[in-house]
């Protein structure tokens, strides 16, 4: 329960505590420390770690997926979960890619792709809020359905989109002032999402519903709408990520994003999102995905034997969450 007692520290700025104290009392503090520690270690362990190229590589490796993490976090806060994000991403790529190949403007095609993703979200929210099925089973079904549609659209072979115009490829491959555009886009989204989640009234409702659905209803909050909103938002962000991947790889592979959901959920959970709703923050979730990527790229950087990588990664994950947990139950 201890993480409950500590939850929503994140919503408690305006505290009459010094900036530093506030930082320390933040739910995310432990994670930040862990990441810094790991980075310091790495910068000694490998001469290449602190190179601009490597940091760039690490950022790139989680920026796009991070956009999905944002959506998943909000969904987890409301008490939901979405296993279909990987498939929905692939479907978006397939739809947008196909439409582009049949001659549509890539931007329009992308919008329609994202639209398809949103539609999946709408249908899922119907089954969750109207029919009353659980998020897990619904999104599991759509993990299959979206993947199936992807196969139908792509006919099982990666759509090759090398003819995408440069200005569109820029989204996924370009850089501004040496910073990959993807990364910039990612940080903008994260910044906005984090701010809104802490400050905006609509997102406060997300916490209420996640914390106690009945109480939310008895406070006049339209619970179904809030849930549906979160589901659709998550699918839509998955779609956006899909478009970015499409622009980066100039392709729409039918098997893209298989198994991605676990990584995304893990990131959010590491970042403090509970699986029972009511807790979590975008900042935390992003630190979560950052940690995961930092670890895998570090293992690569240190040329850890390939067979050891999975195991070590799992171990570090475990250590990290343990430290994080102990730290902020102490504070409680």
């Amino acid at each position: 329960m201890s993480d409950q007692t500590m939850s929503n520290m994140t919503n408690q700025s305006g505290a009459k505590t010094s900036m530093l104290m506030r930082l320390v009392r933040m739910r995310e503090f432990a994670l930040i420390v862990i990441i810094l520690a790991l980075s310091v270690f790495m910068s000694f362990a490998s001469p290449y770690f602190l190179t601009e190229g490597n940091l760039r590589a690490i950022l790139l490796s989680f920026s796009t997926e991070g956009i999905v993490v944002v959506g998943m976090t909000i969904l987890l806060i409301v008490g939901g979960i979405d296993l279909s994000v990987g498939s929905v991403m692939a479907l978006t790529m397939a739809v947008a890619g196909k439409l582009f190949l049949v001659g549509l403007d890539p931007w329009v095609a992308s919008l329609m792709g994202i639209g398809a993703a949103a539609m999946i979200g709408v249908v899922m929210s119907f089954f969750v809020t109207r029919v009353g099925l659980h998020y897990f089973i619904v999104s599991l079904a759509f993990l299959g359905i979206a993947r199936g549609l992807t196969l139908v659209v792509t006919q099982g072979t990666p759509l090759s989109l090398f003819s995408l115009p440069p200005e569109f490829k820029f989204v996924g491959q370009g850089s501004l002032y040496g910073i990959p555009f993807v990364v910039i886009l990612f940080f903008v989204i994260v910044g906005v999402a984090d701010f809104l989640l802490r400050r905006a009234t609509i997102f406060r409702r997300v916490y209420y519903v996640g914390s106690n659905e009945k109480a939310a209803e008895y406070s006049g909050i339209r619970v179904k709408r809030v849930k549906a909103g979160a589901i659709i938002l998550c699918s839509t962000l998955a779609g956006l990520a899909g478009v970015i991947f499409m622009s980066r790889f100039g392709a729409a592979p039918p098997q893209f994003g298989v198994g991605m959901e676990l990584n995304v959920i893990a990131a959010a959970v590491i970042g403090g999102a509970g699986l029972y709703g009511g807790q979590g923050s975008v900042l935390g979730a992003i630190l979560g995905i950052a940690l995961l990527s930092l670890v895998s790229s570090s293992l690569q950087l240190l040329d850890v034997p390939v067979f050891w990588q999975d195991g070590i990664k799992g171990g570090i994950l475990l250590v990290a969450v343990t430290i994080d947990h102990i730290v902020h139950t102490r504070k409680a």
Partner: protein
Amino acid sequence: MNDIVLQLTNIRKSYGAIHALKGVHFTLRRGEIHALAGENGAGKSTLMKIIDGIVQPDSGQIVLNGDARQFRSPLEAQRAGIGFVHQEIALCPQVSVAQNICMSRINTEGGFLVNYREVRQVARAAIEQLADIDVNTLVGDLSISNQQVVEIAKALTLDCQILILDEPTAALTDRETEALFAIMHRLKAQGMSIIFISHRMAEIFEHCDHVTVLRDGEYVMDTPVADTTPEDVVNALVGRQMTHLYPDKLTGDPTAGPVILRAEAVADEGRVRGVDLTLHKGEILGLAGLIGAGRSELVQTLCGLRRRTAGRVELNGAAIHPRDYADAIRSGLVYLSEDRKGEGVFLNMPIAQNVSALRLDKVTTPFGMLDRRAEMDQARTHGAELRLKAGSLRDDVSSLSGGNQQKVAIAKLLTANPAVMMLDEPTRGVDVGAKAEIHALLRDFAEQGVGIIVVSSELPEVIGLCDRVLVMAEGRISGELSGDQMTEENIMALASGLALTG
């Protein structure tokens, strides 16, 4: 003194900055009913949890039957013959009533296989002493009141030498309450010692032998009930002179004022069967009845929380059809749930955020952003009005005592300035002082022209507070009482569907 069963001396317990218990003494003798009184947050439940091994004291001594003990878990306490009826209902919703009642039994003395027939028999035997509830239904489907009954029945199946009842009557109506006291006296006669926590002086003085008073975690006094008076106890636990418990009533005919709310032939999916009522400006209207009468269901139907299948509702002369509760709030109807924990508060969210939940728009800037300062101020104001005892308004509600949680739920209503307030068991678990505050507040609102409907199972409250009371039975209004007609006898008669005698 070998007739002393349990002796606690100098018990201390603090949660971070909050000192829940500051060196409390408590003495329990064999075969007595010992009342424990104190304001919300005084430390009663904490003390009981320490006896039951749920909470470990920071310091202090526990002597059971002459030897010092220190229970590390409820299981140990149970083995030592201690039974505990919790203030906050702790039952398994997806499990049948029977299996809830026999939980410890199945756990400890159950053989390899569970004998469901026996389980049902034991459960039935235990619960039919209190109320008539089918032991096969799932606890999750029961109303709070009935869940409380189950919680009590559960303790009755343990053969214990000490039985702790933490505000068992708060959620009960007179009928079950009487049944409970009958049982308590029987057990007492069998030599069992009972600790009885309640905020109702009447209950303490009718049924208890001793009373111990706590205030702000400090031991105040322990006297035989015979040697003291309700006034003294109240003053002792409030720590000041309590003048009068109930505010003055309306003078003259309560129905004189213009009609604020009018309901005609209102019905829902079956629990409310055609109810007419009018609520007048200035009056406080009471809704009395037995558990299951459908009082909650009625008010919930009025404010859009349950689907209205028939009838018409007028607010200040204009017909309203709230699509949902959000709609109702907008048109000025607010409802306080009887199920504090389940529907009233967000346990793992800060107090301030709980208070603002009902009317977020009031703490929202034009740009749709939250104004957290306003949120805090609002919580501070209403908290003060209700004498809320809390460490910080940023603490989660889960850290509050039962009564204080109730105050948070009420504070939430105060933020909306409504046309009509419907309160379901508004003072359930609230201490005498705060109760008086709440009553006074309600009276003020009534005077300011807010329509007030109070659902209460505590007849003294109904009689003391309301100008007029509607009595319900089986989803219908079985009668209306006002003025000096409002007596417990009349209300009970109507509640049980009898006609008024004389």
